[in-house]
């Protein structure tokens, strides 16, 4: 029984949260990796793009809520999501048209793109804060739990509860659908294959008559969808605050690099590696150990390896380890 309790406590505080966080990071990292594979630069505006998409979705959600439209047990934000995606597509295509395309024509060095993306980041950050303000926003509604801790306890008779938030379930289901759709698109459709070809060998893609502007446009559209979905899921699961989204840049980049920049499969793996390490290292294991160890050996402290304030250190440490021992990432990067 104690053993089961330990497992349930571990699942409740580590497995479940890390899975949903990992799915969110994976969606973010997929966007980073797509941009890297096609446009060949690290997009520092990625976190703020997520914030923008989430913001539009939140505004539409509030509007729906004010009109009394809801999605039953599911959060209204899911209904508003398509609007957020469309707005973000518009924003990214506009940005590409007025900013990035110029440098593409010039065949600018990748680092120039990165600096340009800093400028874009500033502007998006400013726009988001200007419109919705820098504070926390709540927009989740619908049912809160799939299984609440109390239900689980009465169901199983264990003293530890396993709570699965609705947002966790939605995150995981959505992520699976999105990833499956993306891989189907990349591997099965003509356009998707042309994107992979462009990423693999740009010159040869041009010789084959693949239109680079079209590939770039489709990339931005997909990235817009990925970032908005990732941003909304993160906001539903935790909360929406523009600065948090900016800070997500680090774990997202770490996930993309750990998996191998430019490799979508790697981005997903990287997202989960980062999320599980972060949650495991910053979780206080006292509760789990209490069930496993005999009473006289029970830990006095929290048995927390690092305080949660250092979660960025975890992404960073993993990043450094990968850079030291396997700079191309777990999966070989550079192509999609």
């Amino acid at each position: 029984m104690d053993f089961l309790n330990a497992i349930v406590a571990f699942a409740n505080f580590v497995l479940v949260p890390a899975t949903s966080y990992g799915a969110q990071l994976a969606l973010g990292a997929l966007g980073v990796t797509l941009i890297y594979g096609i446009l060949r630069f690290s997009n520092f505006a990625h976190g703020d793009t997520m914030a923008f998409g989430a913001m539009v979705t939140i505004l539409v959600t509030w509007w729906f809520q004010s009109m009394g439209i809801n999605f039953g047990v599911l959060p209204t934000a899911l209904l508003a999501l398509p609007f957020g995606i469309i707005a973000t597509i518009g924003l990214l295509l506009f940005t590409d048209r007025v900013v990035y395309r110029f440098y593409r024509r010039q065949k600018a060095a990748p680092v120039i793109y990165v600096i340009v993306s800093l400028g874009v980041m500033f502007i998006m950050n400013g726009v988001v804060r200007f419109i919705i303000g820098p504070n926390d926003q709540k927009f989740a509604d619908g049912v809160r739990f799939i299984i609440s801790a109390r239900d689980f306890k009465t169901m199983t008779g264990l003293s530890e509860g396993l709570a699965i938030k609705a947002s966790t379930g939605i995150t995981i289901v959505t992520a699976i659908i999105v990833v499956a759709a993306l891989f189907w698109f990349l591997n099965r459709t003509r356009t998707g294959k042309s994107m992979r070809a462009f990423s693999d060998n740009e010159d040869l893609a041009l010789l084959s008559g693949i239109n680079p502007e079209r590939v770039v446009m489709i990339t931005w559209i997909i990235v817009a969808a990925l970032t908005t979905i990732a941003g909304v899921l993160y906001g539903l699961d935790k909360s929406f605050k523009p600065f948090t989204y900016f800070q997500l840049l680090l774990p997202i980049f770490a996930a993309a690099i750990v998996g191998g920049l430019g490799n979508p499969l790697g981005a997903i793996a990287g997202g989960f590696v980062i999320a599980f390490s972060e949650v495991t290292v910053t979780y206080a294991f006292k509760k789990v150990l209490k069930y496993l160890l005999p009473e006289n050996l029970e830990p006095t402290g929290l048995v927390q390896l690092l305080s949660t304030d250092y979660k960025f250190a975890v992404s960073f440490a993993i990043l450094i380890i990968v850079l030291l021992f396997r700079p191309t990432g777990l999966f070989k990067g550079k192509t999609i």
Partner: protein
Amino acid sequence: MAEPFLIGENMTGGYGTGADILHDCTVSVDKGQIAVIVGPNGAGKSTAMKAVFGMLNLRKGAVRINGEDITGLSPQDRVAKGMAFVPQTSNIFTSMTVEENLEMGAFLRRDDIQATIEQVYELFPILRDKRSQAAGELSGGQRQQVAVGRALMTQPQVLMLDEPTAGVSPIVMDELFDRIIEVARSGVTILMVEQNARQALAIADKGYVLVQGRNGFTGTGQDLLANPDVRKSFLGG
């Protein structure tokens, strides 16, 4: 004499704003024939071919295909005009399967490409067995077959090959040349740059020896092989 099917006439130019590499250089090839450009290192062989394909700006001269002037067209537009080009290096999509490479070759086509894929597999049977393998995992000779196959997917009228046998073993080279002859027999015009001058000229209907960006010697493959000057300077006696 009638106008050749493909001609790059009096081409003069270089890369970007750099110095001229080609000086008044002319290469041409008749329909269904094989023309080979040979010459010492740095003679501008590849440059001449790239000029025909529109990958550098010509300051003088013209390129015509089937009598139509295409000097001002981009490489992509030339693909649409029925030209296909196999670069010397990075000529396949390494992360994609053999079959996907062929599909990408036919990207501009909107009709059913299955028959053309079958033709490529008949030409290079080994590719049929490796169709679902990543092209980057194949051997050097097989990669070149993929590269040529990809170029053939547009059903081109002209196939341009930049040193197709670079880095492959002599046996594979003979095999590749056989296939190239086969392609020419089917009516595709072939323009090729080759390092292995002797073997290449042996299969050439027309040969060009370039020297420092100019036409050095021109003639049929057999003529050039028999020409004592050419033998002495380029074929090692």
